[in-house]
């Protein structure tokens, strides 16, 4: 296997409210010998809200982001579930609708770009599983997480809608019984916790519009992991992470009981197992402080 090389679409959150996610992504990539070229030209994906306001603009901006992966001749790797969904959905719509593609390309031509559809778009979690391999990861583990019960939290936009998601990667994930993150936990030597909320919504996207609903969803997720006797949660999505890591007060209030959990990004969990330092993984940037590492 040659050296794996991807175009990294960081998304906005990794550059702002979850700096630890970007740090740990690079730390893990270096340990595994994966090269990540940052798409510095990329814009925000619209986070599933811009399309409510202006669907066509959202398509054009996402297509532009993909153009920069195409011009580098690389697969685009995302580290945010919502970036993944918005980008993959744009690709799906353009690849299956010549007229729409032509309309979008007409706009892109104004800035000298063309969407071709030549780059794959995959979340880092699936890139690791499909291209690098869990066996190889477990061989490289130097500090197995064998003393921990770890609750996976998948995040909606990596598993639904399944038809679209399963176009993007080889791992065939069923949204009602997903396994990828559980498999990564096991590869890191941890004990995976099974609980009802692992494939449910954290409420992030309605936090401002429907704060009570959002707080209840966060609360149920934290409660599920706590009652499943988890030591910490792990998620591939920085938006889920933000919600679970910072909103425990609102969640506790909504639930009528204290709910709080330490939550790691999947890159941080993997990094710990691969022997990265606490500093490299940015563990000090958590609001629900990390006490075990």
């Amino acid at each position: 296997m040659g050296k794996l090389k991807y175009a990294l679409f960081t998304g906005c959150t990794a550059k702002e409210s979850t700096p630890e996610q970007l740090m740990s992504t690079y730390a893990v990539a270096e340990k595994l010998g994966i090269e990540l070229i940052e798409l510095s030209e990329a814009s925000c994906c619209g986070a599933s809200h811009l399309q409510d306001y202006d669907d066509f603009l959202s398509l054009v901006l996402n297509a532009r982001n993909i153009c920069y992966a195409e011009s580098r001749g690389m697969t685009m790797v995302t580290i945010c579930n919502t970036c993944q969904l918005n980008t993959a959905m744009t690709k799906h719509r353009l690849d299956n609708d010549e007229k729409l593609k032509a309309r979008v390309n007409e706009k892109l031509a104004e800035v000298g770009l063309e969407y071709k559809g030549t780059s794959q778009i995959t979340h880092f979690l699936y890139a690791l599983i499909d291209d690098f391999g869990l066996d190889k990861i477990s061989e490289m583990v130097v500090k197995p997480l064998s003393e921990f019960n770890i609750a996976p939290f998948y995040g909606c936009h990596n598993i639904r809608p399944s038809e679209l998601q399963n176009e993007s990667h080889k791992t065939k994930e069923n949204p009602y019984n997903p396994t990828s993150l559980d498999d990564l936990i096991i590869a890191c030597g941890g004990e995976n916790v099974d609980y009802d909320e692992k494939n449910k919504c954290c409420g992030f996207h309605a936090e401002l519009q429907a704060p009570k609903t959002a707080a209840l969803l966060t609360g149920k997720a934290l409660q599920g992991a706590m009652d499943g006797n988890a030591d910490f949660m792990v998620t591939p999505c920085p938006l889920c992470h933000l919600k679970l890591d910072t909103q425990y007060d609102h969640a506790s209030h909504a639930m009528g009981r204290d709910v709080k959990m330490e939550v790691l990004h999947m890159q941080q969990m993997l990094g710990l197992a691969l022997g990265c330092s606490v500093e490299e993984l940015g563990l000090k940037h958590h609001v629900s402080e990390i006490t075990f590492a």
Partner: protein
Amino acid sequence: MENNSVTTKSVTFKVFRFNSDTDYLPYYKEYKMDVTSEEVILDVMDRIKWDHDGSFSYRRSCRHGICGACAVQVNGKATLACKMNAHELTNIFGDELVLEPQSTKRSIKDMIIDKSDFWEKHNAVHPYLISHIDEHPEMECAVSPHESENLMEADLCIQCGACHYACPVVELNEDFFGPAAFVKAYRFEADVRDDAHHERLEELGQAGQGVWDCVKCFECAEACPKEINPIEKITKLHNMLFQDGNIRNNGVAERHAVGFAHSIKKHGLLDEGELVRYSEGNIGVLKHVPVALKMFKKGKIVLPWNMPKSDKLDEIQALIKSSSVSKY
């Protein structure tokens, strides 16, 4: 000849049982059965009733995926019992399947639920054509093929309730119309013959009950047995709300969606702090200060003067200028 031999598997069904007239609490009863690769979940339910316990209750009618009566959940997965092959489910969940009604808390008897909330929401969106019909028309009321395509198959809904009871917001917010009602509303909003677009949209845009409370989890898209993709229609309704020039609620939700365009225009990326301020307003934003302070202490807040920008921002700005369809 193709090899299409029938296979058999031993499957344990853990079945939700509850009789609201006599039981204080529900319970689960196990039935171990040999199930062939040709049987659907409705066959299994029939056999439980016929071979094991005649009191087992469920709704069934057409057996052809049209009436929507036999919708249940298997291991939490929305399932139209007459369409879902039992072996297919064991491939996903293993050889122990949990058979439950669409909503355990609404169970009247076993799989039969009180679906009145579903029909109340359905009625609330005025699910019919509202049109001033000329009693003596001089020409037909034509709908072009292109115009009928705009319904995007929303008219195929069989009202089984799979998406409604899969929706986490329906579960938590009793005012929320839910995905099935939104699909129905869209079906008439997209109908060129309907004259009540504006009035219906106004109700669909209300906080609490309307489309803004959707959490975008895509459970509805996954649950629908007719592949109607309710969240796609919800997005269309969002777009319609912005396009209807007379609806300017100017609420948090609307500003939140528009705020992305403002932020991308300025930085290429999203300015998270500014988005919250713009959405909530200068006073509303204050309620976020406690969490923001905790985040600031952990280095999770980028101050305005340090806001990162996308490379080639001029390109992004040019595209926003040339490609924007909506105005706010």
